[in-house]
């Protein structure tokens, strides 16, 4: 018997290595199980988590024999930006092109909003309200505050409109173009409910369309109304989620926008369906050039007083991203997710608490549940005490300063005396996809797919 067994072992068919499916990977399978157990789609915060063609797929061509660079730290490289000078009596002047994207009080704690205001003001840039109205924490601590005008009109009132430095008409956002806001019951506390005029503790679903206008012709009349209410003092931004950037930008400019805010699918949200975040909209890399083309075709691109500025957002993380976005044609960028990380979101020092929530530092995205151990995406009075608005604001100011200096390093290397002098000709792409989307040549070639022949 024992002989037979040993023979069996020797001649046994070798086992193949267990192989996981690339299609049915571990995350996919866990999502199927979650769906089967609950009967409701997954809701989460943040932006697209999939690997997308992005700014990392571009490189700068530093100066060499054919052109000369500027001295670092000695020769000037300007970073200031003026937004909305087309019609407004009081355009926005910023020291850095890195702005803070719209995030609502409600999705964020009051102390987090205060920290954003403090950090942005110290860095010489603007912060933006969100789908929940203007708070004193934010207005009081923000030198320059952009007030969002959203479909829900939660907390919208003319006094705050007049207190704002600019007004951003929100059509959509990159995480969910075509979708409205969402704030679940855990975060609809008494204060949040009162500001939004909703019953406490309900699951709020904001509307996805504005209640009193439809289409670009109406938008023009709406923008005019806001100008009339505010006596033509303030720039009017129009924010769109990146889907059909050429047409959407052209129509928004025709409707009278002073500034276009273009948000790619990597841009975060406080909460929406996972399927929306990952499957609707396009990456910011693919959206900038068509948007700039629309401005150029309308004669509104860097054309003196007759200019509409472009702010882009969705996955901006460092000075290289800032410089690349500007080289592709943006006037400024906006950061949301990155700003929250600078404040302390998803910080590894809270790992034990993330583990308790069934996640890990860096991956925590159940912001809608209001249990954020960092005290940022919560309305829990105990948790929100954990963020120190002064210290967090200081970190944000540091981070914005670093991004700005990094962008200058790149610009000087390319021989530019202002970030806005960066141009697509300073860039090449590492991949065919990025080359086609950003319309810059594949490195080492003259080839831009869709533009030039290989």
């Amino acid at each position, binding site marked *: 018997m024992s002989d037979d067994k040993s023979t069996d072992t020797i001649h046994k068919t070798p086992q193949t290595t267990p192989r996981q499916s690339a299609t049915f990977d571990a995350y996919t399978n866990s999502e199927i199980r979650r769906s089967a157990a*609950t*009967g*409701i789609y997954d809701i989460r915060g943040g932006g697209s988590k999939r690997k997308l063609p992005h700014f990392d797929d571009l490189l700068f061509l530093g100066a060499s024999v054919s052109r000369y660079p500027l001295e670092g730290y000695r020769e000037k490289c300007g970073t200031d930006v003026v937004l909305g000078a087309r019609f407004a009596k009081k355009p926005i002047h910023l020291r850095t092109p890195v702005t803070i994207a719209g995030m609502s009080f409600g999705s964020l704690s009051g102390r987090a909003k205060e920290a954003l205001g403090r950090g942005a003001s110290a860095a010489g840039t603007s912060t933006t309200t969100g789908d929940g109205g203007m708070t004193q924490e934010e207005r009081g601590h923000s030198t320059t505050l952009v007030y969002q005008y959203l479909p*829900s*009109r939660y907390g*919208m*009132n*003319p*006094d705050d*409109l007049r207190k704002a430095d600019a007004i951003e008409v929100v059509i959509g956002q990159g995480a969910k173009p075509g979708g409205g806001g969402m704030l*679940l*019951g855990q975060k609809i506390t008494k204060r949040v409910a009162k500001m*939004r*005029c*909703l*019953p406490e503790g*309900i*699951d709020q*679903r904001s*509307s996805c369309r504005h*209640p*009193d*206008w439809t289409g670009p012709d*109406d938008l023009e*009349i*709406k923008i*005019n*109304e806001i100008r*009339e*209410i*505010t*006596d*033509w003092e303030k720039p009017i931004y129009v924010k769109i989620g990146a889907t059909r950037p050429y047409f959407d930008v052209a129509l928004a400019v025709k409707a009278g926008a002073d500034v276009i805010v273009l948000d790619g699918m990597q841009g975060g949200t406080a909460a929406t369906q996972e399927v929306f975040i990952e499957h609707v909209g396009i990456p910011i890399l693919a959206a900038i050039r068509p948007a700039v083309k629309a401005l150029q075709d309308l004669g509104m691109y860097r054309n003196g007083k007759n200019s509409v500025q472009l702010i882009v957002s969705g996955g901006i993380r460092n000075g290289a991203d800032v410089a690349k976005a500007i080289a592709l044609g943006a006037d400024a960028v906006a950061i949301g997710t990155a700003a929250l990380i600078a404040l302390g979101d998803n910080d590894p020092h809270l790992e034990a608490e993330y583990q308790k929530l069934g996640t890990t530092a860096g991956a925590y995205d159940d912001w809608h549940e209001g249990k954020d151990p960092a005290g940022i995406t919560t309305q829990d009075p105990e948790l929100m005490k954990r963020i120190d608005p002064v210290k967090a604001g200081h970190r944000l100011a540091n981070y914005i300063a670093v991004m700005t200096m990094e962008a200058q390093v790149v610009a000087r290397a390319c021989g530019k005396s202002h970030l806005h002098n960066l141009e697509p000709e300073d860039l090449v792409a590492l991949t065919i996809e990025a080359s086609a989307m950003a319309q810059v040549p594949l490195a080492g070639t003259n080839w831009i797919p869709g533009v030039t022949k290989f």
Partner: protein
Amino acid sequence: METLNFDLDKKPLREVNQFLHGDASGLNGKSVVIENPNGAHSIAVGLKSDVHVTIKGHAGYYAAGMNQLAKVTIEGSAGSGVAENMMSGTVHVKGFASNAAGATANGGLLVIDGDAGLRCAIALKGADVVVGGSVGSFSAFMAQAGNFVVLGDAGEGLGDSIYEAKVFVRGKVKSLGADCEIKTMDAESKKILIDLLAKSGHKDVSPDSFTQYGSARTLYHFHVDNAGAY
């Protein structure tokens, strides 16, 4: 009472609105008449004092938008979004109103003598809206708070996804929207209705001829069984 006349044929609307945004101490109690409005958009928007404005004709979009304190009378009809996001004061349309009348209004009283179009009182946030005629489809959509009185009929999808606003309709309702249901009118609601009828020039109309509608509150929380209604 001092009356000031502006003729929009002769004076740009920008200058008229700028004048109406002046210091409240100089405007409170004053009467302003706007002649030849000819359907101009954004007439008398953003007012913030107790000024009485009479628009002698038809107004375009967003007449009296975001009104605070002022009393605005439109002697003709009004375009889309009349008194949108009103905070306080009174807006009276003697003719008809187009779509989204009183949209997102937080306070004050909007009275429309004629009919109103689609989405009347959409996302209402606390104001009172009284319509003498009928209203179009999707009225009181997502209405959050406030009171909406219709003396005529209502179109399809009345009060879809309504929150805590109270809706009173005297005529027929073509259909109710998701989560909107007939309510039993309690004493408090009846008092609100009587008061609004009196304030809007309908004091002889019996409150008992109205049916009250409001939220069934079944969509306040996500639930898989409601998937079809989302």
